[in-house]
Every structure is written in C-alpha cells, then in structure tokens.
C-alpha cells in the first residue's frame, strides 16, 4: 500500500518535472532567437557574401518556421545532439563532456565544505543557548551570504597564493607537472584515491581547496541559518523531554531525535543549494582558471557561441528539476508522515 503510494508520488513528480524542463526549453529557445546577432554571420565572419550566409542559414535550419525549429531543437537535445560550437567546430556535447566533471567535482566538494561546518556550527549553537556564540555565528553567516563570490575569490588568491605562498595560483585542477589520474568518473579526487595515486590526490585536493571554499561560503551561511532555526524550533518539543526521561542523555536526545526532525525541512533547501552550486560555478571557475562548464560558458558568451550557451542553460534547468524531483522522492522515503499519507489511518 505504502509502495503504491510512493510510486504514484514519484510518477507525479516526474511528470511535473518534465513539464518544467519543457518550459525551460521553450524559454532558452525563445531567448536566443530574440538576441541580436546572426549565428550564420558569426560562423562565416563579417566578410561573407549574402549568398553563403543564406546557404548556411538553410543548412542550419534557421530559415524554417519557428515551431519546426523548436521541435527539431527539443528532439535533438534529448537524443544527445546538442549541435556544434560555432567557434571551435567541436560538438557541444563533447565540449561539455570534457568540462562537466570538473564542475561536478568542484560543486560536490563545495557542498560538503558548506554543509558539514554549517551542521556542526548549528548543533553547537543550539545545543545550549549561549548568546554571544549564537550572535557571532549568525554574524558570520550574514557575512557569508552577503560577500560577492568574485571578490572573495580574488581576495583568497591574493592571501593564499600571493602573500602566503601556501596554496596554488589559478592553474586549474592540478599542477602543470602532474598528470591526471586514470579516468573512472572524471572526478580527480575520487579517481586518484581509488587507483592509489595518492600524490595526485594530494595535489588535486590542494588545488580544489580554495575554489571550493570560496564557492561554499555563501551556501554555508544559508544552510547554517536554516538548520539553526529548525533546530531551535525542535529543541523545545516536549518529546525531547520524554526522551530524556527515558534515560537518554541530553546530547543523544539532541542528535538522535532533534536533528532528524530539524533536518527534514532543510532537505528542500539542500537540494536547491546543490543545484545552485552545480550551476553557479561560473565566476569562481573564471577566477581560478578551473576548466569546468562554467568557464566554458564564459568563453562562449564572449565568442557569441550560442549553441554552447543554450546547451548550458538547458542542462542547468534539467539539473534543477532532477535534483528537486529526487528531493521530493527522498522526502517520501525519509519522512514517515509523507510516506504513509493516506495509507493506513489511525486506529
């Protein structure tokens, strides 16, 4: 019964997710048709003759009716044909494929660097009320949320690399004399660790530290504030008193009972944060010369390489929708009140 309930929820979420992606597709399609600049002219250069431009437009399908163009566009996106980069002539999918795992690695690392300290700090601050500690932690969180990423990135580079010489400069994922680990997932930290290339692992960790920290900082502030509020709310729930009256220590009652209850409302936000990190690496990648999808997008915008930008926008939409759908489904698994809604009523 519960299983059918879950299955129905999942199907509903997937359908609404698909609709969202379709809308995003339409938006990205429309936006690029509205922007000034003709891709055919970009490809052929300013000296091309009107005939050759018209030929290329025909070849690219730009002379067809807009609905037809839209249909072809969607079909091609989902069958994996994301077009060619006008600037380099390489298929967009190949370009993205080379870059995306660097972004994923950066975003996941940043997520952990944001989430774990946020959780630890929220637990410490709410476990026993200590006004000065709480006030300082909140101050830090507001600073974290308010600090512009590109500024923080430059500052971190100046301090860590230029002044102290303890961290690498903007040279990407590895030092120039270190070769990448064997390819398994494309995540250097993972691949190097599990193939036993510990020197490479160390070098990759050393390189990812600064960009990930910079990227994580605002998310850390956001998640700390959220966890703090939820923990404060749960902390005064009577069931914690009952748990303690059973002989469970105050700390265990807090960790085993207050935390899971406080964590549930944070799940949605965590999903949004992760999606935001995956799609929001653009500035940090630019500053640290991180060879990820964000840096690719910056280059492509400058080169008016629309196919790449378009693919990135769509990819971002899909990432958001997929993560949110996963979070919704996860709710059904984690929270018994959602999982069993409608199934087996109270006696």
């Amino acid at each position, binding site marked *: 019964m519960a299983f059918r309930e879950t299955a129905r929820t999942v199907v509903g979420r997937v359908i609404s997710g698909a609709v969202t992606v379709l809308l995003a597709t339409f938006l990205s399609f429309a936006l690029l048709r509205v922007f000034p600049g003709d891709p055919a002219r970009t490809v052929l250069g300013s000296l091309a003759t009107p005939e050759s431009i018209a030929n290329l437009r025909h070849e690219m399908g730009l002379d067809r009716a807009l609905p037809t163009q839209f249909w072809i566009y969607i079909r091609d996106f989902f069958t994996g044909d994301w077009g060619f980069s006008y600037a380099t002539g390489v298929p967009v999918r190949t370009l993205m494929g080379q870059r995306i795992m660097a972004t994923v690695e950066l975003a996941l690392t940043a997520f952990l660097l944001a989430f774990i300290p946020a959780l630890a700090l929220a637990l410490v601050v709410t476990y026993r009320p200590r006004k000065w500690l709480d006030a300082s932690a909140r101050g830090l969180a507001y600073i974290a949320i308010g600090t512009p990423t590109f500024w923080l990135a430059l500052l971190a580079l100046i301090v860590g690399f230029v002044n102290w010489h303890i961290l690498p400069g903007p040279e990407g994922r590895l030092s120039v004399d270190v070769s990448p680990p064997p390819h398994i997932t494309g995540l250097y930290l993972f691949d190097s660790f599990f193939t036993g290339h510990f020197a490479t692992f160390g070098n990759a960790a050393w390189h990812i530290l600064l960009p990930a920290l910079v990227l994580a900082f605002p998310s850390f502030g956001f998640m700390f504030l959220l966890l703090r509020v939820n923990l404060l709310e749960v902390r005064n729930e009577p069931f914690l*008193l*009952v748990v303690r009256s*059973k*002989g469970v*220590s105050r700390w265990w009652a807090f960790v085993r009972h207050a935390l*899971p209850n406080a964590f549930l409302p944070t799940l949605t936000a965590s999903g949004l944060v992760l999606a935001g990190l995956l799609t929001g690496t653009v500035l940090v990648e630019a500053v640290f010369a991180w060879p990820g999808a964000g840096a690719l997008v910056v280059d492509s915008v400058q080169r008016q390489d629309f196919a790449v930008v378009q693919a990135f926008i769509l990819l971002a939409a899909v990432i958001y929708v997929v993560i949110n759908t996963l979070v919704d489904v996860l709710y059904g698994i984690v929270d018994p*009140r959602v999982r069993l809604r409608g199934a087996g009523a*109270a006696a």
Partner: protein
Amino acid sequence: MSSDLVLEAKGIETHFLSRGEPVKAVRGVSFSLARGEKLGIVGESGSGKSALALTVLGLLDPPGKVVGGEVWLHGRRLDLADEREWSSVRGRHISLVYQDPMVALDPVKTIGWQIAEVIRRHNPAIGRAALRRRVVELLREVGVGDAERRADSYPHQYSGGMRQRVVVAMALANDPDVLIADEPTTALDVTTQAQVLDLLDRLTTDHGSAVILITHNMGVVAEFCDRVLVMYAGRIVEEASTSELFAHQAHPYTEALLSAVMRPDQLPRGPLPTIPGAPVALDALPDGCAFAPRCPVRQAKCELEPPPNVELGGLGHGKAECHFAVERTKAAPALPR
C-alpha cells in the same frame, strides 16, 4: 531511613531565574513516597506541581534552577548527581508519563523503536529478538491490539489514547520504583481518560511501581490515590490520606478546591463555584500566608505571619499549613477511622 521508603524529597526549592526577582515555583517542599504507594499532588495551574516533578526527575532546564533541598532515591542522593548518573536513573528507577500524548513521541521514529530505546538504554546487552519480544509484550500489556504489526507504525498512525498507552508502556518498561504521571489524562477525552487511568492503576500495581500523580482533578485523586499533597504557591499546604482529605479539609484552600468540584447529580444553579481571585504572583509573595488574599476565613494575623506547619496526627488527620488548622480540625464532624 526505612527500607520501605522509595523516594524522599527534603526542602526542595526551585526557582525560575529571569530578569528581576526570581520566580519561586517550589518553596521548601518535603515529602516521602513508600514502596508501591500512590501519591497525588493537586493544585491549580502555577502552583508548582510540574516544577516539582521536573526537579525530582532532574530534568529542569534553565531558566529553572534547583536552589535548595535534597532528593533521595533508595538512600542514594540524586540532587548532587551529574548528568551521567541522573540519566542512568531516569527510565530505570524513575520514569515519566507526560501530560500530552500528542507531542510526547518522536514523529519520525516507529512506536516499537521508541519503546525499545528505553529498554536498550538500561540493558545494552539485550539481543534483537529478545528486545522485539519485550516491545510487543509491553504493547500487548497496555492494550494495543495487533501489537506485532502496530509496533512498526508511527505515532501519527495512533490515536491520542493509544499514544498515551505507548507512553505508559515506555514508562513501565524497566519496572521503575517511581512513576511520575504529570496530568496524564488532561489531554484525553473523558472515556479515554477513565481507560488510561484504569490501565495506569492496574499496571503500576503489577510492576510494583510507586506513583506520583500530578493533577488538578479531585475526581482522579479520589479514584486513584492513597495519599494526597495539596500544593499552593509552591508549598504543600495540606497532606492527608485520601479518605481523610475528602472527609475533612484542614486548610481553607483544600476546602475551596473540593467545593469547586462538580458532581453530575448535583449541578449547581447559577454561576459555577470558583475560588475567588487569582493565584499569588510567585515573584512577589506576601509576608503572611500566601493564600490569605483569597481566603474566605482570613484574619489579621494571616496577612502578617507565615502559618506554621501543623501536625494533626492526634486528631486523625495529616498535616496542614494554616494558623487555624487545629481549630478547624477539632470543629470538624467525626472523622472516619
């Protein structure tokens, strides 16, 4: 100390510290509890009943603070214990039945898990199968039908009465010496109240647990308790066996409390009987008797001098804290002996 004495509280002082004057919720309360005894603590809201219960359980959180007194359990002094020692006692020797079953259980853990938690806490060596058996057995004992399956349900799948049965099961899981029930039936409807009270009565007798029943309901006291403490403004103003107390009230407050109880066969016409005035502010206590401002029989001396604690054993009653306790008791009609 008699071996029959399970719990002893001596001169408990519990304050709530806030800005300004501390709120003196419990002001020098002493009582003792014999093995298997059922003791009632009655009083209005704000008389310090719950603060006293939390003090005895060592669960008082800031801004509450125990500023004086001693708690003894089986000759072991608890009020000086650290959190580790306290937590080895709670759930094993002293347990709690919380007043509102709707909020007493963790919403994201199964019923069975939550009962198992208290067993495992005090018996870490217990095996999985034995633990499961014990949980199901407890659920059956408190009258949860289809216990095997219902152990895997979550609190929101239980009704209020069923949840309170679960809370009772958790409180009795380790056969505690003392069970503190803080208004265990106020949040339930009347028919469920009677069932839960009946269950509590029967099971605490079976498990050999003494009970401290905190309530403002005199009907519940009459049905359940062997002995009663009446609390007013943080002090015990009268103490007597249940039969003594219902026959005669040495303290005017107790008398007022009882006259406010309604009997379905004798419903009054006109306004319902109440105790006039509001309970005294616990951060601005008067010099004399705390009940004096509301007392229908007060005299000049009541507002000037704190009343003595009068032993009325010779008169066939307990104790009372009133200037006129002796006179009132002597004037009372013959007490049932």
